[in-house]
């Protein structure tokens, strides 16, 4: 009788070394960061729901949200979400370009990977700098 292919092997077959042994190219970093920021933004969507509910609850609701978001930890989370959204946006546009068949050249992909990391950090810092220097709040 043939062995059940689903049965775990008594002696697992050796695996080819992969993640742990190769030097990580920057494109591997951008790939896993895209996923990481995506999962982070899923949590951000829950925070967005909380924010919207807090507004719908009037002044007390607004204050209850800001009591948490205005703390150092709250600001750190907001900064993380800001950077995540910018990163996922920029790298997402690059993914759409790949889907259309553009940008598969290795050197080019490496170069714009570094650019996406740099740009996303600069843009996130710029958003926070704008907020802190009073350039936000223009919808008042």
């Amino acid at each position, binding site marked *: 009788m043939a062995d059940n292919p689903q049965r775990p092997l008594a002696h697992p077959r050796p695996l080819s070394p992969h993640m742990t042994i190769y030097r990580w190219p920057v494109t591997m970093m951008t790939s896993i960061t895209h996923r990481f920021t*995506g999962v982070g*933004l899923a949590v951000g*969507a829950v925070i967005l729901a909380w924010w*919207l509910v807090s507004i719908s609850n*009037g002044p007390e609701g607004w204050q209850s949200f800001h009591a948490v978001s205005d703390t150092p930890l709250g600001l750190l989370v907001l900064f993380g979400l800001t950077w995540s959204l910018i990163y996922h*946006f920029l790298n997402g546009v690059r*993914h759409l370009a790949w889907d259309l068949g553009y940008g598969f050249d290795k050197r080019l992909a490496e170069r714009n990977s570094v650019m996406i990391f740099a740009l996303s950090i600069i843009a996130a810092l710029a958003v926070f700098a704008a907020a802190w220097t009073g350039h936000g*709040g223009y919808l008042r």
Partner: protein
Amino acid sequence: MSTAQTPLRKVRGLGSSHSGTGHFWHERVTAVALIPLSLWFAYVMLGLVGTSEVTALQFLAHPWNALLMGAFVCFTLWHTYLGLQVVVDDYIHTAGMKIFLLFVIRFSVLATGATCLFAIVRIAAL
């Protein structure tokens, strides 16, 4: 050549996944929709920094803004659902755990979306 597939099945071309390229395509459609919507969202968030709940209420109560926020929430959560599903597909290899997590993700996304939309409607009605 004989085949077990009915002509209808063959013409639909959905393959062994039973959903064809639907998942991939919906992920792209929502991504494209989210390009302008995220830019609008970022503009709004920075525009409301340091203001009061009155400003936020008045802004979101405007029909166009309520509509855009509703669209942003819907496309974001749809895209989130598709993305999280891929993460589970990639890393979870036992059927029971996979089904459980997909249930949790689907319910969470639906609950978050319903909460957002209810809040947006409530703000508009205030």
